[in-house]
């Protein structure tokens, strides 16, 4: 094991141990104050916003955004913008009323607003689906991180380690009460990207290398690329390299000379490029640096549809994510909830500048990741690639690995807690709802996605996450928005809308998760279903509610008033008594 690997592994271990230890201390703290909800309500908006951001910034944000920018250029910027804008939609339409409803999960809200056990049960199912789908890339990210910093370890070891740590933390600790751990992890992630970003900007400022070249990127050093999945590469000028594997259908071992055009490489091949060679780019991605700099530069005729669908999914999906809503409940009242959300917008905006910058820089320093289609590793490899193998670069790489690990741990713990909380309070599954049931539920909600992570195809993290966003936007967004703002929503309408949106988006997403991509319109729809499924769900909910108007609850106006009236009027009746 190299010294760099030892440093990185130690950093990862420190983060994992620290979270578990602080988590178990947090439980003792929560027990002393006898009610962790009340305890957490003494937390101000800034600390709370730190916790929300800490839980929200996952592998997709920490690793995935930079990787997609390396691949797609400005089109990928819609991911971080959407991840942030989702909080604006949450602020505008959901945050304060949801807090006033006293519900802290969507099933709770459905029960409050519609008093229908059927809708509640359906919501529970979707919380579990979304939670598991979101957990998948987190665990895969843990695997990727371990496999990147220690090339001798297999990816599954990282996944299993992360899964075990997360399940143990939740079962023995319960991260929910520990706002400060999450806030700490936000600042850890921020530092882990900010420090390399600052160092690299100073370094790059010294020897400026232009982005805008009408040519593909070049390998900055001699690079060896292992191809893990079959790929079609395109070159625009002749390339000579050493290869071992099946290239263009021919078994090759030795020097290869590629003429401009498309070339197929089967998995298992090993390609060795010398420094200065043009990088072959996978088919469908912008090839020249100058076209990579401009928006909508890909080949697909449906990319505009894809971007709008992504905007729809991320803008409207955030409000339906299970771990996001639970966090908002720790605010004392609706007004504080709004202020917290505004601070979250500031924190996320500041954070996402960093992966954007690092993603652009990785085009210069780690373009070989494009060939192996492993761009999610860009942030992890960038410090050593740009600064050389010195001690400082090694430490920076260790810091980045620790930050990435913090990203998986905090998001996964939040998700496992959210899913387990919903599972264990669902009367049909755990009729008693004891702490023991919660622990059993936590194990279930961690082990199942771990199994899935070991078998499912690995898409880019941000893409997998955006699939979860699409399902959330097609199910919970219409339910929450119509439930909060429209007095005409009935239980039947909600049920029908949830089913239409959920089955359509969930089906599409499952097909893409298992690697089905027929290409063309259908492929785009399977990958980015939100632009169709979200309006469909809204429409179904509205139309069916109008048809079943007789089922309206008699006290809907009062329910809505409780959601919107300020707390000082004393209408909400859900105040937990304050201590002191």
């Amino acid at each position, binding site marked *: 094991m190299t010294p760099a690997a030892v440093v990185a592994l130690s950093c990862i271990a420190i983060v994992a141990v620290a979270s578990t230890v602080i988590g178990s201390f947090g439980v003792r703290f929560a027990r002393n104050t006898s009610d*962790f*909800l009340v305890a957490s309500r003494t937390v*101000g908006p800034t600390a709370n916003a730190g916790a929300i951001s800490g839980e929200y910034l996952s592998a997709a944000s920490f690793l995935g955004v930079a990787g997609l920018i390396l691949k797609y250029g400005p089109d990928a*910027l*819609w991911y971080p*913008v959407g991840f942030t*804008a989702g*909080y604006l939609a949450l*602020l*505008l339409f959901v945050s304060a009323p949801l807090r006033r409803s*006293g519900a*802290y999960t969507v099933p*709770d809200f459905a029960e*409050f607003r519609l*008093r229908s056990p059927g809708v509640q049960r359906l919501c529970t199912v979707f919380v579990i689906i979304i939670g598991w789908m979101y957990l998948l890339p987190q665990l895969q990210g843990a695997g990727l991180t371990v496999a990147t910093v220690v090339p001798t370890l297999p990816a599954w070891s990282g996944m299993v380690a992360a899964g075990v740590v997360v399940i143990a933390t939740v079962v023995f600790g319960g991260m929910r009460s520990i706002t400060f751990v999450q806030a700490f992890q936000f600042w850890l992630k921020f530092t882990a990207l900010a420090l390399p970003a600052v160092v690299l900007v100073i370094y790059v400022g010294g020897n400026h290398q232009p982005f805008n070249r009408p040519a593909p990127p070049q390998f900055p050093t001699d690079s060896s690329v292992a191809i893990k999945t079959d790929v079609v590469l395109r070159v625009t000028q002749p390339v000579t390299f050493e290869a071992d594997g099946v290239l263009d259908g021919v078994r090759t071992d030795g020097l290869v000379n590629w003429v401009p055009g498309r070339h197929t490489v089967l998995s298992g091949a090993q390609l060795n490029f010398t420094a200065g060679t043009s990088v072959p780019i996978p088919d469908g991605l912008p090839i020249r640096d100058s076209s990579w*700099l*401009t*928006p909508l530069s890909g080949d697909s005729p449906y990319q*505009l549809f894809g971007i*709008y669908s992504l*905007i729809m999914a991320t803008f409207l999906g955030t409000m339906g994510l299970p771990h996001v809503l639970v966090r908002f*409940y720790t605010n*004392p*009242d*609706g*007004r*504080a909830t*709004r202020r917290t*959300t*505004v601070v979250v*917008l500031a924190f996320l*905006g500041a954070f996402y*500048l960093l992966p*954007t910058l690092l993603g652009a820089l990785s085009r210069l320093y780690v373009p070989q990741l494009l060939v192996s289609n492993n761009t999610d590793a860009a942030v992890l490899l960038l410090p050593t690639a740009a600064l050389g193998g010195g001690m400082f670069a090694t430490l920076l790489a260790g810091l980045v690995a620790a930050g990435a690990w913090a990203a998986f741990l905090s998001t996964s713990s939040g998700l496992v807690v959210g899913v387990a*909380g919903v599972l*264990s*309070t669902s*009367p049909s599954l755990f*009729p*008693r*709802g*004891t*702490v023991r*049931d*919660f622990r059993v539920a936590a194990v279930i909600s961690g082990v199942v996605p771990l199994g899935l992570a070991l078998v499912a195809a690995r898409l880019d993290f941000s893409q997998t996450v955006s699939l979860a966003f699409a399902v959330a936007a097609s199910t919970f967004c219409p339910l929450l928005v119509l439930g909060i703002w429209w007095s005409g929503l009935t239980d039947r309408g909600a049920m029908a809308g949830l089913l239409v949106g959920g089955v359509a988006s969930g089906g599409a997403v499952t097909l893409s998760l298992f690697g089905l991509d027929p290409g063309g319109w259908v492929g785009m729809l399977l990958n980015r279903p939100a632009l169709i499924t979200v309006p469909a769900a809204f429409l179904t909910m509205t139309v069916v509610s109008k048809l079943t108007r007789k089922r309206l609850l008699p*006290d809907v*106006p*009062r329910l*809505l*008033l409780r959601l*919107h*009236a*300020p707390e*000082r009027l*004393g*209408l909400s*009746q859900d*105040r*937990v*008594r304050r201590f002191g």
Partner: protein
Amino acid sequence: MSSDGRVPSVVSDEYPEPADPPVPPGAARRPGGELGPDQDGDLVPDESPIQLRRELRRRVGNGPGPADLAGPDTTPGDRPLSSPGRHARRDGQPRPPRLDYVPRHAVRTPGPGSVPVSPTDVTEVFSRVRQDPTERPMSARPESEPIRLIAPVLPLAAPPVPSLEPEPESVAPGKRERVVLSQRKGQTRPVRTVVDVQELTQVGEVLSSSLIRSQLALALRIGGIALITLGSLPAMFVIFPVLGRFELFGLRLPWLLLGVLAYPFLLALGWWYARSAERLEQVFADHIQN
């Protein structure tokens, strides 16, 4: 004033709500204080009704009892400590807490370890709002202050208020005002509009649906600005490809807009919304309480 859909404000938040934990005790907010962005210039009280009310209160002597003054958020300087007056409660005790007050968490939104709730429990808690017609409705300020404010007499059959303009005259000086004193023995006289809203009488329903509509209009307006601004970008880049090559401050326009400027833009919209929504709520609460 109504250009942004706000209800015109005539009364300020003279007595801040008790449920406001970020404000530490002793830092009671006063009009014109510097705590938080919600203290707007145009929410500074109209002098005349406040003066009038103070005068009335002084004459009636209906100040809060000492127990109330001990509350963390009261502003002692504003209230006389003189005799509670003829109509005040004889015993001088603060009102006992409502016996039927059930914290919702006792039964709803259980934590992972709590006993599951059947829907009937919840309905029962909810229906506690008012079962007995003679029961006093919940006080507007349940934790610290008895009801003793002055309510404007609202026209009972208020016309529907589509544009959120409440009766602007209702607290104007010189108008008749109805003085509602503290609880009298054996009889209750709660603030008219609070009851209206709680009971969702015609007036109450108009008031509350106007609040919801104004909040929705605000949210839709700001959401629309965000959606149109950001949503038009991909189309613009397709229609005018030159935009994608345009450079500003050494950055390509798409990178500058999406990579940098989108975040302060979203933050500014969020901040604007939080501020305006708070103001709408404040005006609504003041309106029905005073």
